[in-house]
């Protein structure tokens, strides 16, 4: 078992009180597993991704633990986390296009970063160029400034840089949302290839694009309003979803398995509840076509079949 998250709670501090962006989330990711995390915007999936590597200054770790290969990740301690970042946990950010310092040559940037981690740039260079070549970039991009590269090239540089130390866990946060369809596909395939080559042990792919994760993920986890709704192997989530929310999400897709382009999850009427004062019981209740009295109580996230967990009173029956 690589990553183990138990009852993780992370709040956003605002002037009007805490927003419970992540309200008790537990799951695990196995070695070699690619897990897709999907949900509408504001469901907590990005918060989850950030929590595993770096809380921003408005985020507060309230409870729960994260362990990686049996070692506890001090996610609330920014300094202590530095030891794990880049080497054990790494990130491909949503903003990959602007993730590189515009006034530094890419090679210099990499050298600075490696030096800060006490690693020799010269010794790493052969591996770096090999990986750049793998994603179709010539060695001379190291001599370039970011502005001289196209968006797709910058994305690939970030991909290579983030995984240079073969991290045990890679968080890919909405990596394809800024790209066109054909590039999306190429990036998705590269992610799988990096996993297959062992550059990354396991991966958390955070996205709003179910069709994308369906192509590359082994497992899909559906989040709703700061909690987990359903988690199962990709096939199962897409073909036999049990949570009404997942069913609506999937139903919102025209045809599963085909190429959908940039399909957004907007087909479900209503909006998720505010997380400053979330309602009691099942948080999907207000929008759920199947809601009944019992939904006033929070349904547990239970395993209903092998590797298939759901938080819904109707799911087991």
């Amino acid at each position, binding site marked *: 078992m690589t990553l183990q998250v138990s009852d993780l709670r992370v709040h956003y501090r605002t002037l009007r009180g805490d927003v419970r962006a992540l309200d008790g989330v537990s799951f695990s990711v196995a070695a070699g597993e690619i897990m897709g995390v999907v949900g509408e915007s504001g469901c907590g999936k990005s918060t989850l991704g950030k929590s595993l590597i770096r809380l921003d200054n408005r985020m507060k770790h309230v409870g729960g633990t994260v362990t990686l290969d049996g070692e506890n990740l001090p996610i609330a301690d920014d300094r202590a986390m530095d030891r794990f970042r880049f080497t054990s946990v790494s990130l491909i950010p949503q903003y990959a296009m602007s993730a590189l310092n515009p006034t530094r040559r890419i090679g210099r940037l990499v050298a600075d970063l490696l030096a800060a981690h006490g690693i020799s740039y010269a010794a790493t260079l052969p591996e770096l160029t090999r990986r750049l070549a793998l994603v179709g970039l010539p060695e001379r991009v190291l001599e370039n*400034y970011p502005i001289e590269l196209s968006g797709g090239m910058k994305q690939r540089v970030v991909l290579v840089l983030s995984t240079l130390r073969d991290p045990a866990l890679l968080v890919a946060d909405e990596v394809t949302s800024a790209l066109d369809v054909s590039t999306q596909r190429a990036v998705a395939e590269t992610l799988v290839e990096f996993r297959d080559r062992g550059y990354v042990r396991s991966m958390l792919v955070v996205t709003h694009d179910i069709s994308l994760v369906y192509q590359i993920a082994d497992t899909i986890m559906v989040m709703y309003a700061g909690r987990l709704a359903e988690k199962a192997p990709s096939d199962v989530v897409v073909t036999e979803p049990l949570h009404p929310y997942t069913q609506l999400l999937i139903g919102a897709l025209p045809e599963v398995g085909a190429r959908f382009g940039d399909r957004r999850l907007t087909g479900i009427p209503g909006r998720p509840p505010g997380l400053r004062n979330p309602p009691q019981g099942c948080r999907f209740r207000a929008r759920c076509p199947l809601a009944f009295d019992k939904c006033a109580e929070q349904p547990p996230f239970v395993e209903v079949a092998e590797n298939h967990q759901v938080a819904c009173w109707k799911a087991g029956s």
Partner: protein
Amino acid sequence: MRRYFGRKLAIYALTFVVAVTLNWLIPRFMPGDPVLRMLTRTSVSNPEAIAPMRAYYENVFGLDVPLWKQYLKYWVELFQGNLGVSVWLFPAPVADVIVDAVPYTLALLLPSILLSWWAGNKVGALAARRKWLDNTALPVSYALTATPYMWLGILLAWGLGIVAGLFPVAGGYSFEMRPEWSWAFVGSLAQHWFLPFLSLFLVAFGGWAIGMRNLIIYELEADYANYLAALGAPRRLIRRYAFRNALLPQLTGLALQLGVLVAGALVTEIVFAYPGLGHLILQAIQNQDFFLLQGVFLFIVIGVLAANFLIDIVYVLVDPRTRTGMQGAT
């Protein structure tokens, strides 16, 4: 890059033309003909001044030639360095009077601009990361940058000059000395230079410190800073990047501020009766010496344009984005 400099130079050339044209237009078309008025007044106070003044006036503004010829003539005289004769220091040519004063202004401006820029950036960057410094340096900086140059000058002259008696408060050197290359004279120069320099430095310093502090905070929020932090880069590295990147807009800010800084130097010179261009302006106004005033104006414009161009060159040297030619114009 050639396009970038081409555009810049074109703008500066045009600005110069505009300035010269303004200089020619204003006295020529002002109701009541102020220059003629000046000549009449001069003829009363200083009879022998009238002949060369009138000669220059006839030459450049003479009414018997068509306008375009007058305008052309003005340019020709300009390129020959003929800016007319000063009324105030008759019979010295305006160009000579100005050339004598320019070193004093430069001696004030250059160190105060460069040092305040450097120190302001350093302190601003420090303030962005130390709460106590932010809480002390920032309010002080705001007060300084809001201070009128002359008022700070007056206060310093009063406090350090008259009350404490540490520094002389007027002139470029001790009035009992003659300009010469001796230690005593240089010492006197330095003594007289210090207070005007200090007041210029302090006001400009506040602005730079605030600018750098705010820019760094924006830079530390930038995507590249977040990415580096997520990859476990130490704060030191991220701050170094942020500082370097924040220096670029500060450099552009320097170009934008030049006019204000020069203005500050002019009034500071007036406060301290420092014999630079500002002092000339005051004398020109009080003596109705319009040729001198216009000459000083042209010199200031040329100086500011040259400094702008210098900053452009430095900017290209330090910002790869302009060098790669992907972003050139404006």
